[in-house]
């Protein structure tokens, strides 16, 4: 299939592996930021093919995983109300809050629906004028423009029964937080290709320069990821830092101007809590004043939830790359995708879930 097969081509993969093998002289640790990349690395078992000198560690870029428990609890509470239709992406429905997940709410009669596009939630609102339709918006900069568009469109269509529970997070503040941690072992980053398709590469230049680290914009197919790793290794071996683009077929330095303008109109930067990590300043999106009437947290009187994470789960260390999923004593034992103890096991893009799915030790 065109545009897919060439990026999963064994000959190209072998060629890139040879180049990487030739250029690497010492041990390097590279973190991929995005959960989509983690998933692809595990699905194609790239670690099995790479030289031993290269370690891949997995970053916090799974938006479902880092959505704080109390926000999931709010979604669960809203979803259980008889006058509410709660709409979200499929992955979010399975994620347990402190007591319940959305699928259980659905089983008890809550109207919970899955969509692929936020605009579909608007159609649901239009067809159900007597119900409040709440879209649980989760994701990085990649999905935020589609949500922004839906919110703007809701304004245009004067849909008073539509609102959004916003849990959008941003990549650069997470990279900064990781690098600020003196314990971090990261030598280079693979930046998330689709986030950069929207936002461009300029935000990463000051980070690379301040922390003297290579940040390589990378795609998601095996060839893309190996190309990103190859560029990282070349930069590291040549003692170069900076931002390079190894996903030029999708990413332009300036990003997607229209999407960025839309984001600026609808959203503003706010502090946000990341599950397993804590509050990161300026790391999330909230609605700008003109659009706050669509903010579900303001529209509904939601109770404050006290939440408590499992004490066994080492999500924080896994989401920051200090530990690998297989280092956790609960991994594949008391913590499985059917019964996740913490964030990285809940979504298919979470590192623990990807390890479990593609690599779990023989049971």
């Amino acid at each position: 299939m065109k545009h897919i097969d060439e990026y999963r081509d064994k000959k190209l993969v072998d060629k890139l592996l040879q180049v990487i093998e030739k250029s690497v002289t010492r041990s390097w640790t590279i973190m991929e930021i995005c959960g989509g990349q983690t998933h692809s690395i595990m699905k194609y078992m790239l670690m099995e093919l790479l030289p031993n000198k290269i370690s891949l560690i997995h970053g916090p870029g799974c938006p479902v995983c880092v959505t704080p428990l109390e926000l999931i609890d709010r979604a669960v509470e809203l979803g259980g109300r008889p006058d509410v239709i709660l709409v979200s992406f499929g992955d979010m429905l399975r994620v347990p809050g402190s007591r319940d997940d959305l699928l259980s709410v659905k089983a008890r009669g809550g109207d919970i629906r899955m969509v692929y596009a936020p605009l579909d939630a608007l159609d649901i609102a239009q067809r159900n004028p007597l119900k409040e339709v709440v879209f649980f918006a989760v994701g990085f900069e990649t999905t935020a423009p589609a949500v922004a568009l839906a919110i703007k469109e809701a304004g245009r269509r004067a849909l008073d029964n539509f609102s959004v529970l916003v849990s959008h997070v941003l990549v650069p503040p997470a990279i900064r937080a990781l690098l600020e941690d003196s314990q971090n072992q990261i030598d280079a980053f693979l930046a998330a290709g689709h986030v950069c398709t929207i936002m461009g590469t300029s935000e990463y230049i000051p980070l690379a320069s301040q922390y003297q680290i290579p940040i390589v914009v990378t795609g998601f197919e095996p060839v893309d990821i190996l190309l990103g790793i190859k560029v990282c290794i070349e930069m590291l071996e040549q003692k170069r830092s900076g931002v390079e683009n190894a996903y030029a077929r999708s990413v332009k330095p300036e990003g997607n101007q229209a999407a960025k303008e839309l984001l600026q109109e609808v959203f503003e930067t706010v502090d946000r809590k990341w599950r397993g990590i804590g509050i990161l300043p300026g790391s999330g999106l909230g609605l700008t004043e003109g659009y706050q009437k669509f903010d579900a947290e303001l529209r509904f009187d939601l109770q404050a939830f006290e939440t408590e994470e499992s004490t066994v789960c080492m999500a924080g260390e896994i989401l920051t790359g200090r530990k690998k999923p297989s280092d956790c004593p609960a991994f594949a034992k008391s913590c499985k995708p059917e019964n996740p103890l913490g964030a990285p096991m809940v979504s298919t893009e979470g590192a623990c879930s990807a390890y479990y799915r593609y690599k779990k030790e023989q049971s």
Partner: protein
Amino acid sequence: MKPEGKFMLQCPIPKSEYECILLAHGGGGKLTRQLIERMFYPLFENDILLHGHDGAFLPPIPGELAMTTDSFVVDPIFFPGGNIGELAVNGTVNDLICCGAEPLYISLAFILEEGFLLDDLWTIVKSIARSARHAGVKIVTGDTKVVEKGKGDKIFINTTGIGRVLPGLSISPEKCAAGDVVIINGSIGDHGVAILTEREGLAFESDIKSDTRALNAMMLDVFRKCPEIHVLRDPTRGGVATALNEICLSSRSGIRLRENDLPVNDAVRGACEVMGLDPLYLANEGKILLILPEADAMEVLTIMQRHKEGAQSRIIGTVSSDHPGLLRMETSIGSTRIVDMVSGEQLPRIC
């Protein structure tokens, strides 16, 4: 009434009488009678059914029998390539085939929702009759119940199938042995994607049709000429990955797939890429997995490929003693990974 059903195009119960199902259609009285006599009997006509008893009297069947039961709740009930009716017949027939049995009789129970359109029921019943004739099975007994509006979802169908196990066959996951090969009769994931294209919130345009099909003609041919088959499984819900994982777990064998050998239509691959689905986990309704000694593989493939439903048959993997209980796959780029059983429900109400 004259059994002329095969040639009737219009619903035999005119709209002027009843446009949709009423609670009374399941009440056992006149309206139930009308459904049976004007709709079911003419289409399903056979010597056993037409006796009109509460149950069916079956003639003696020599040898071992196989019996299966299944419920069909697919949503939507009409989908590209078929409807819930043919799914019910083909699914039951294929379950019997997976027991190594020749399908003979099927029971049919409808749970209808009040308000369900009689025209839609008529279309479904016609499909059931056509599929049963095609598969050579008799619908010998049945039941109709109606639930209040909102207490069901249009139509649910429950079936039971009875078949005669072919002498000389012994099919069981325990017989899975290292060195055996895994064969499938064609492309995977078609039914799952066909259903997906019609779902609220997921709808998209494609040419993909469900693969719903009875496999008894092809498989009876295989059974007669090559009885050395160790395991049979139809990869319906949960797809090929789940079916093979179940075999791995119950046989304590390992199975190794080759990604490059998996037959997946481009349209299905495309849909999976966009939707974030894996064809290995998507439902099939006209596919069968065979595990058998390598020595018999070529003969079986030749037989299967002579049939329309097996034209694309191929070997997709082998049984190994290296990783007992695990399904592994050699990826397209040469690495190896686990193919786990699906966790949770990828798509509900797929059949």
